[in-house]
């Protein structure tokens, strides 16, 4: 394989490996599903784990080992001392390995109910989710939870790895039954989310034994009835280039670069779509128009000292200059004039609450969406989603690890997209203004203009509001009167 090429012709090897793809995945499963064992196996069999690390793990296996095998793969994966002593992983950890085709980043998150927060975090950057099911136990409540979160976070590919097939005698029936059960719950989920089925692009099933190595890296000889690929080959070949929205150009301005009086560039990372020199653009929320003058992407040090390019696409980090001098600052969004996005001061979003202190209605929080920071108030919790039963429940508070659909009013208008359309402009975090903690993640569903959905206030309410604003300005009360 690659090692041979590296040994015989390193230049050729380097050439081939310059153009690998990057695939980010999340593994979902609980302590007992063998998740750490699976990851350890992937790292070990892809030769990512080196001799000295292995010796250290063998030494530790004796001390903490929970496996009878010689090497406890879970110990390769579980980092922090206190966690090791408890024998569980408690946070998101990132692992890396690569094959000839792809570089992989695994977000390893625990499957306990109280750690929804961690799974959402890991899922936020993933292209693909591996959902582990213990072949002995079948589809469990946690499987529904994992599927729901993967779908909520817009993960396009799900692989259901049915693990511990060795314990169930590599039985085809067990595999088929679990597959059937899973597809049933998936059907229910898409119905409950009122989502079109293609919001997740692919769902596939692989029977594996992480402990014995069946269908992880090598195809298993114990399950001749299974005609699909082993997990690693599957990961290597699944089509991911269509996952990014390459249609709608969105450029959140991150940093205004003014090294001298003659240069004024807008640095940022393209959230979606692509842009060419001379394209007509609109800056939002101001609505000012101009054209792209230059797209700067320096190649310093390499043979061709190229500074600017003709076309750029997501997720490139570039600097734009414009033909006209218009006022633009961090937080603005540059889009093509022909397909602009809407601006709004009221949004409806799915909120994942991540803090010990519950969500409070009517309190001002800070929101960070792409490069825009602004203040917002939760006006209403439309419902809370039971992530196990997928029921919608009426509530007026969200607690740690709860997910709900909320309406927020913003202190200024922003240009935004639904999360399902463009992740980069449809996602935000919520920050507590006193503790500075990240207390929630938000996924925009709808950014329709506030007016239609706004509550109609009574005369008395408007008068009270006016009175407070006049006499108690230090309360910083927001006006509820219509702007005319």
């Amino acid at each position: 394989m690659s090692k041979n090429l590296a040994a015989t012709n390193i230049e050729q090897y380097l050439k081939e490996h310059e153009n690998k793809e990057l695939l980010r995945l999340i593994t979902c499963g609980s302590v007992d599903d063998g998740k750490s064992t699976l990851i350890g196996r992937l790292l070990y069999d892809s030769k990512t784990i080196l001799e000295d690390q292995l010796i250290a793990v063998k030494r530790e296996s004796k001390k903490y080992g929970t496996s009878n095998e010689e090497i406890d793969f879970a110990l390769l994966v579980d980092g922090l001392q206190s966690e090791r002593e408890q024998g569980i992983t408690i946070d998101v950890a990132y692992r890396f390995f690569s094959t000839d085709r792809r570089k992989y980043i695994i977000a390893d998150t625990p499957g306990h109910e109280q750690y929804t927060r961690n799974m959402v975090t890991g899922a936020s950057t993933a292209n693909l989710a591996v959902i582990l099911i213990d072949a002995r136990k079948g589809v469990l409540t946690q499987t529904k939870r994992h599927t729901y979160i993967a779908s909520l976070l817009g993960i396009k590919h799900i692989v259901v790895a049915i693990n511990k097939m060795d314990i169930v005698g590599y039985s085809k029936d067990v595999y088929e039954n679990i597959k059937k059960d899973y597809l049933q719950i998936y059907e229910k989920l898409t119905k409950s989310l009122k989502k079109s089925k293609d919001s997740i692009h692919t769902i596939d099933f692989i029977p594996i034994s992480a402990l014995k190595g069946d269908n992880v890296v090598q195809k298993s000889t114990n399950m001749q009835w299974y005609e699909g690929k082993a997990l690693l080959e599957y990961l290597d070949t699944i089509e991911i280039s269509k996952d990014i929205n390459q249609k709608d150009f969105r450029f959140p301005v991150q940093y205004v670069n003014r090294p001298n009086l003659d240069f004024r560039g807008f640095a940022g990372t393209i959230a979606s779509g692509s842009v060419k020199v001379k394209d007509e653009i609109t800056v939002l929320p101001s609505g000012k128009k101009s054209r792209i003058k230059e797209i700067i992407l320096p190649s310093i040090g390499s043979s061709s000292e190229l500074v600017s390019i003709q076309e750029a696409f997501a997720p490139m980090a570039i600097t734009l200059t414009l033909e006209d001098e218009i006022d633009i600052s961090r937080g603005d969004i540059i889009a093509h004039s022909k397909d602009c996005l809407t601006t709004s001061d009221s949004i409806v979003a799915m909120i994942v609450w991540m803090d010990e202190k519950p969500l409070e209605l009517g309190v001002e929080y800070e929101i960070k969406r792409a490069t825009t920071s602004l203040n917002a108030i939760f006006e209403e919790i439309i419902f809370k989603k039971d992530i196990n039963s997928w029921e919608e429940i009426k509530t007026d508070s969200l607690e740690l690890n709860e997910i709900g659909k909320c309406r927020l009013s913003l202190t200024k208008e922003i240009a935004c997209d639904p999360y399902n359309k463009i992740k980069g402009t449809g996602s935000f975090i919520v920050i507590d203004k006193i503790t500075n903690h990240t207390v929630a993640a938000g996924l925009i569903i709808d950014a329709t203009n506030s007016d239609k959905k706004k509550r109609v206030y009574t005369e008395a309410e408007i008068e009270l509001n006016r009175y407070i604003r006049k006499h108690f300005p230090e309360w910083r009360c927001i006006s509820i009167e219509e702007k005319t």
Partner: protein
Amino acid sequence: MIDKKRLSHLKQLEAESIYILREVAAQFENPVMMYSIGKDSSVMLHLAMKAFFPGKPPFPLLHVDTLWKFKEMIEFRDKRVKELGVELIVHTNPEGIKMNINPFVHGSKLHTDIMKTQALKQALNRGKFDAVIGGARRDEEKSRAKERIFSFRDKFHRWDPKNQRPELWNIYNTKINKGESVRVFPLSNWTELDIWQYIYLENIPIVPLYFAKERSIVEIEGAKIMVDDERMPIHLRKKAKIEKVRFRTLGCYPLTGAISSNAQTLPEIIQEMLLSRNSEREGRIIDKDQEGSMEKKKIEGYF
């Protein structure tokens, strides 16, 4: 057409790191970039030059000089800084100078504590930096795998692994109170192989110590230590032999073991790395003190 609009893994990592560096520049009052002169620092500096082109990085570099770095490292540092026209702050612990700390005499633990950990704290306190950019990667060590890209530190520069802020998408919470700070790791998602491939692809200058050459070597407790100057005790220097070696990581010369190697070019280094069965931290003496030792050091404020 779609295939054309695809970024390779290295270009994606590059874009991600540039985004992180710009985020620091846009959101903090007084950031600084740690510059250790090693290969990761070289990559980070290269990325910073790209991120703010045609301007210069809007933050200074900080080198904590233990006075025991390889001579070639210091030469390289001064040359690069001049070439690129960036600002460099060099800090050495004045108490360490007074005490004449010597790793041959005082051992690695005390030397590291006074000349690195304490010195770093002094430099950060003195500079009142609110964001400190470091070149650590998650693949280096198990405890790093769980660290955030923007990692919060309290007033005493302490890291609390149990109380980290959730980090979603590429939206980084940069809010801190006065006196607190954030350590930022733009290379979090790079592996050692990515770093080498990128250095090769982008033609990034690195310290010549990474390339194999005949050097004067003494075996000390199983590590190949290079005789870099007269401060190595004479009884050790007497045992020196000429060996063809190179370094996989760089640090204080008495604490950094070399490896036997013939790799004299970047492709040869990468080839050797791919075929080797040992990780790069192997040559670092401080890691092996005790199990989970990096985790302990980090809680104490080590970078």
